[in-house]
């Protein structure tokens, strides 16, 4: 909507009062009612009849006269008002002329009734708005408790846990603990590090070819550990050979394995702590 809004609070072509002012046309819509329908309603009120019985013809004349007056003083009118004026002029001509026999769409009478109904509806809603606003309003006419007392909240925790949580926690806990204990108490596996450390000690004294398993059986007391001791020692032996601190010799598959200290070319650091990670 354009900035120039007319006030039609009175419906009078209040323009007369404006004439003294310069040509700049502006009547601010103080009360907030606006638009051509509003103007029509205010004009209709001047007919002082029930809106249901209003003469739309007379109303159209009033409106057109108002627009004409406004134009004379070069009052700038919003387009809405002009559209309404054009429509009313059209309606007026239709109302004055006899109805063409086969007219499509609403008749002039129906259009007039529809306009009257729109006006009645606007008036009715305004009346309703007035009655609504006349009701006692909160914090204006009636008041709530000024110092509401807070309701203290006491929270009761409700714990949740399922039987599955319980059992899986228990099983995991016990199992983990049992395995940890086994590891620390009795080791069934001879680690590579242990095997290597032992071999290195043996190699230090074995300048002649010696049978690896002789030493091992002598070394290991628990027969149940034979296999792991042998396997780890063999792996450690291969490693020492690769490093050049030891030589191994075997005649054929499954024949006894011999080893001896490798005669140093340079001075190998045989006592170095094994660094190989365990297993």
């Amino acid at each position, binding site marked *: *909507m354009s900035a120039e809004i007319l006030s039609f609070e009175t419906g009078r072509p209040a323009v007369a009062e404006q004439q003294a002012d310069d040509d700049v046309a502006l009547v601010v819509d103080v*009360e*907030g*009612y*606006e*638009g*051509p*329908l*509003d103007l*029509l309603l205010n004009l209709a009120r001047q007919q002082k009849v029930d809106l249901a019985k209003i003469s739309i013809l007379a109303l159209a004349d009033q409106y057109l006269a108002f627009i004409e007056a406004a134009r004379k003083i070069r009052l700038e009118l919003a387009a*809405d008002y002009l559209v309404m004026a054009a429509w009313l002029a059209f309606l007026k001509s239709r109302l004055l002329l006899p109805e063409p026999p086969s007219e499509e769409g609403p008749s002039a009478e129906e259009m007039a009734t529809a306009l009257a*109904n*729109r006006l*009645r*509806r*606007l008036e*009715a*809603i*305004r*009346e*309703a*708005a007035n*009655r*609504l*606003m*006349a*009701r*006692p*309003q*909160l*914090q*204006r*006419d*009636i*008041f*709530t*408790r*000024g110092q*509401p*007392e807070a*309701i203290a909240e006491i929270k009761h925790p409700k714990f949740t846990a399922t039987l599955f949580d319980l059992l899986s926690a228990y099983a995991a806990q016990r199992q983990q603990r049992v395995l940890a204990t086994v590891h620390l108490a009795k080791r069934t596996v001879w680690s590579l590090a242990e095997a290597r450390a032992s071999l290195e000690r043996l190699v230090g004294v074995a300048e002649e070819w010696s049978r690896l398993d002789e030493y091992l059986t002598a070394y290991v007391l628990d027969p149940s550990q034979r296999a792991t001791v042998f396997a780890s020692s063999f792996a450690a032996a291969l490693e020492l050979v690769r490093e050049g601190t030891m030589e191994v010799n075997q005649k054929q598959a499954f024949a006894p394995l011999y080893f001896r200290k490798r005669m140093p070319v340079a001075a190998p650091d045989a006592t170095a702590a094994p660094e190989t990670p365990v297993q």
Partner: protein
Amino acid sequence: MASLAEKRVEHLEIVENIVEQADAEQSSAQPEGRPEELRLLEALLFASSEPLDTASLAKRMPEGVDIKAALAQLQADYAMRGVNLVRVANKWTFRTAGDLAWLMTRESTETRKLSRAAIEVLAIIAYHQPVTRAEIEEIRGVVTSKGTLDVLLETGWIRPRGRRKTPGRPLTFGTTEAFLSQFSLEALGDLPGLEELKGTGLLDSRLPSGFSVPVPSDDPALREDEDPLEDGELELALAPPVEPEGDAEG
């Protein structure tokens, strides 16, 4: 507008009716043997600044108390007092008596006056809800400025409630509980003049859509011709956040 003296008479008449009803229901309402549940209700309702519905009252009261009867009795007890027990939006709350408005002016915080346009739009939303902006404009015969709706949204009395299933899917607007609370309405059916408006058929503002229902409803359930708002749309439409009660005056 009714004069204050008339109002007071009105008030007294209402009060007498309430008291008679309550007395009829509970002939032995002696002050001494006042049932404990009335004290409890009193305390709960008095303490709260928010209206409470019977369900939440029942939750806080001891088992087996007839909440409705107790509320009726309490309403009667307070009918003559400076503070009344009233029902708004189907919830119960204590409020100062309407005829004492003159005394309370100082309690009144800064009230922003709604423009006439805003009042009109509010009324159209209240009486025609759910209603779209185009329908509001159809009734008023003028474009609604964005500011008018913004001001109303800010009061917390109206809310966008859905989208009309028509081309463009325009927002539909309706009133809130805060609206009922603001105007001391128990339900939307208590809107002043609603019956007359229904009688004249003037509520049937709807553009021909085949769905027209000439009775306003703030039932949050969407109508057949409404789609729900998408997530996040509500926040957008309602920003800034609105206090539920209190500073939402006009």
